[in-house]
Every structure is written in C-alpha cells, then in structure tokens.
C-alpha cells in the first residue's frame, strides 16, 4: 500500500483502504457462499430426506446438522452428508437402493429433531411423503414381460394400497395376463422398500422426489364428472336424453350400459312345447 498520498491524512487514508479491503473480502466471501448455497439446494433425486422433512429450502434453513435423527434411527439408515457429496453438507438423507426407511410407528427420527426441520406434526408414518415410488422402466420390469416377479408389490408396507397389481392382457402370448405394479400416490410414503427389493441390476421402480414424480393439474381446471357428482347433477345444461333411431323396444344408455332391450319381446316359442300349444288359449276364451 502506498504511504502518504498527495492529500489527506495517511492514517485516515490507510484506515479507509483497510476498511474497504475488509468489506470487499467479506462481500466476495458472501457472494461465493451464497452462490454455492443456491446450487446446494438442488437435492439429488436419489437422496431421500427423513420422514417429515420440510420442503428442501425450508429444510436447509431449519436443519442444524446435529445428526440426532441419525442417532435415533434404530436401523442406522440415515447418514449426514459429508463434504464432497452432492447433498447439502451435514444434512441427513438416505439412499433407498442401499437401505430404505423401515417406517417405525413411533418415528424416532422426527421425535429427535430439536429444530422441527423434521415436522413434529407428522405422527402417523403412513402420512409421510418422503418421495413417490415410480415404475420408471416398463422395458425391464419383469411383470411387464408377463412374469410374476411381484417383489415390489410384496414388500410394500402398504401392500394393495400404495402398490396394486393391475391386470392387463398379455398381447405377446395372446392368452396370459400382465400384472402391472401400479403405485398410488395417496398411499405411497416413499419409504423405498420397493426400490431396494427390485430384483433387477438397476431398479425399475424408484423413489423419486415428489416434485419430479407428480404432475399437477392447472388450478383452474375442473373435471366435469367430479363437479357433476358434487353437484348431484349436470352443472352445465340439463341432461337431455338422446334420441336414437332404434328398433321398437330398444334403448340406449349413453352413460355406459350401451344398447338395452327395454322390454324383451316375447319369444315365438316358449320353454316347453306344451306351453307353446296352450298359448293364446286363455285369450280365445
């Protein structure tokens, strides 16, 4: 630094330069860390937060990285992110393919959290939404090939609710069924047991963060049939029965039952010969 400028008190000048230098250093430091923190908010899809975790940005503002959740997890599933890992330093996560959440009923990890980064409002583990299982690869899933693997379905803690097997026709063999594992977001907690259990080299079913796994209907969208059910009838125009040119005695139900015979025409012959012969006898009387 130059000593004694052409003007002013050198001590004052040095003080101001020092001050500016320090402030600049601190600001550069803040900028660097700030930019780094924005990239750290992108949680990798394979890292799953413990149950009850707040949305990622809120979570990173609330979690003090103490690891009490890690200590209270009876199955040692959670770990704290080390420096160099793509997860925000020191925050807890687990990897479903390695060790999935065992869904303890008392949720000890949430109870242990001193700050509420894991929401203590979560009291029923079935309400946890750590992510959503998605059958990401139809091309390798054994059930899609017509085999009865079913492992993801069998291990699901909410079997027949979070994962169901949906029957489809097997067009390859022409005579068998496909049992398609189908995940239902209203029950799936994202525990990752299905991903862990998938027998493939690389799991065909994976737990994916909610925001990647779920679509979202436009908020102004209304599904007509739901509105109609709520209103107890058409909310647009009154239903007018459609008129079809149909043979006499036939009707058409446009809500699904299709072609109807309103009153079955009498068959020319009865069930027994005697009845046929006697037909009309009463009228003739």
């Amino acid at each position, binding site marked *: 630094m130059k000593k004694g400028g052409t003007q002013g008190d050198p001590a004052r000048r040095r003080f101001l330069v*020092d001050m500016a*230098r*320090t*402030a600049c*250093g*601190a*600001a550069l*430091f*803040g900028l660097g*860390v*700030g930019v*780094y*923190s*924005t990239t*750290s*908010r992108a949680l990798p899809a394979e890292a799953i937060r413990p149950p009850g975790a*707040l949305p990622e*940005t*809120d979570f*990173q*503002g*609330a*979690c*003090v*990285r*103490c*690891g*009490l959740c*890690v*200590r*209270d997890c009876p199955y040692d599933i959670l*770990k*704290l992110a*080390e*420096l*160099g*890992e793509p997860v*925000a*330093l*020191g925050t807890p996560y687990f990897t479903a393919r390695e060790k999935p959440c065992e869904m303890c009923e008392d949720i000890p990890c949430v109870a*242990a*959290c*001193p*700050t*509420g*980064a894991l929401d*203590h409002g979560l009291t029923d583990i079935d309400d946890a939404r750590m992510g959503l299982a998605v059958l990401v690869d139809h091309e390798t899933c054994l059930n899609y090939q017509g085999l009865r693997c079913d492992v993801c379905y069998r291990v699901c803690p909410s079997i027949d609710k979070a994962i169901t097997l949906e029957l489809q026709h097997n067009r390859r063999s022409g005579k068998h069924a496909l049992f398609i594992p189908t995940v239902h977001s209203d029950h799936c907690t994202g525990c990752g047991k299905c991903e862990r259990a998938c027998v493939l080299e690389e799991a065909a079913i994976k737990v994916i963060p909610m925001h990647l796994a779920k679509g979202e209907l436009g908020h102004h969208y209304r599904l007509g049939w739901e509105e109609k059910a709520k209103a107890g009838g058409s909310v647009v125009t009154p239903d007018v029965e459609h008129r079809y040119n149909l043979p006499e005695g036939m009707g058409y139900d446009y809500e699904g039952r299709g072609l109807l015979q309103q009153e079955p025409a009498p068959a020319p012959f009865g069930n027994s010969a005697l009845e046929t012969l006697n037909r009309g006898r009463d009228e003739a009387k």
Partner: protein
Amino acid sequence: MNVVALKVPAVQGERSWWQRHKWLLLRRTSQLSILGLFLLGPWFGLWLVKGNLSSSLTLDVLPLTDPYVTLQVLLSGHLPLAAALTGAVIVSVFYLLVGGRIYCSWVCPVNMVTDAAHWLRERLGIRSTQSFSRNIRYWLLAATLVLSVVTGTLAWELVNPVSLAHRGLIYSMGLGWAVMIAIFLLDLLISRRAWCSHLCPVGAFYSLINRFGLLRIRAARRAACDDCMDCFAVCPEPQVIKPALKGAPKNLTPVIESATCTNCGRCIDVCDKQVFEFGSRFNHSESGVVAMPAAHPREERQ
C-alpha cells in the same frame, strides 16, 4: 519474536513445569474430554451425549444448542422448536458466565489444529508479512447472517470449518480433512493465527457474547511485570493484554476487558512474575497475593 528466548526463559526454574503448563494442559484436557464425550457413543456405544456441538442431547434430557447456529436458523425464517431454543439459552447463559471465547480455547476442536500450526510456525521460525485485519471476522460474521436472511438457508453451515470438524470427527469426515489441512497450512505458512484470531466468524460470534462474560483474566500483579514480553508472544490475541498490563499510568483496570480474549490462560502459564490470574470482571483491585484462580472454568460442553 525470538523463539529461542521463548523456549528457554531466563528465570526458568523458579516455577515447576506443571506451573508453567497448567492451563494449557487443562485446556487440552477439556478439549479432548468434550470430544471424547461425544465419541463415547459412536465408538463404545455409551450414549451419554448424542449429536454434536451444533445441537446435542445429554443423558436424554439436557438439550444444548449452539446459539450462533440457532441465530442463523431464526434469520433464515424458521422458528426452531422449544428443544433447540432451550438449548441455545442454556449455552448462551453458560458462556455469559465463563466468557464466550472459552468456546474457542477450551471447546472448539479446530483450536488444536491452529495451535499445532502456530507451534510449528514458531519452531520453524516462519515469518510472513501477510496480515489480515482482526476485524475481518466481524465482517464475515455479518456476511454469514445476511446470507441466512437472503438465501433462507444456513448457507454458512455449508462451509463452516468449525462445525464441519466436529461433525466430521463424530460422524464422518469425507473431504473435511482437506479443510483441516488447509486451515493448518493457512496458519502455518500464510499468516500468524490467521483462522482463529482473524477470520473465524464463529469466534467472532462468541466474542460478542464475551463482551458480557463474567470470568476474565486479570493482570492483578502488573506492578511486577518485567517487560519480558512472554505473554505477548504466547497470546493468540496479544492486543488484549496491553490496556490491562500497561494501563496503570492511565488508571485503566487490570482486568482484560477486550471481548476477543479467549480466556485460554496461556499468559498465566508463561508469566514467571505471576502477573495474571483468572477473576471476575468486576474485581478491579490489584493484588499483591500470588495468583489464585477465582473461578475454575468448568469442563463443559459447548
């Protein structure tokens, strides 16, 4: 400074080796036993203490939370639960009693790294002219707090070497070793006592608490000072000594009042005239009595 003179004081022999290293050894014992308490669980399955210095639970009842990290949480817009807030209050009150920077010298694991770097630096006689302002830590502290507000996250905790070191030792270090080596090299080669006494925002935060700390070091027998400069040489924050030690003509108190004093007690150790002692910040008397610690800094976590 003259390293040789430091190692072989002229009047050595009047005080025993123990007297000349007492506070250093107590301090190391404190640092290691606090770390040990945290490691009893993961290493031996004795869960007296769970968590780390950011937040912990002792004997399943006592929550302790770092007030600095709690402040960052509050500024990021999240109201922590009662457990964390209670813990932060307990820790704050403790440090208000014993002096905030006791954290730096008696608790923080990074202190052992930087002390080692300083020791080697003196041994090797490394002198470099690089120097930072000692105030930069307050600017960095302010930057970390502003970052919490702006980003809504604990941005500083993404890089904080202090929490990184402690968490790393107890959980897993990952590349954290590289950061520890970087701090060691910074203090060894680039600037004297660069991290703890110039840059660390955690220390800056605790020195703010220390403004009100009750336990102080006092130059109680400053009249006996023979200007050997040993205390200045050994002190991590030498600027704090002068007003107390040399302030008699200006009628300044013998209490070291500067908030950046870490209460490490090394000045008490090295002073052959036994000028320094621990005492209350309100005790402004100069004693002729040989130093007796008025209060013994308890080995306490956080």
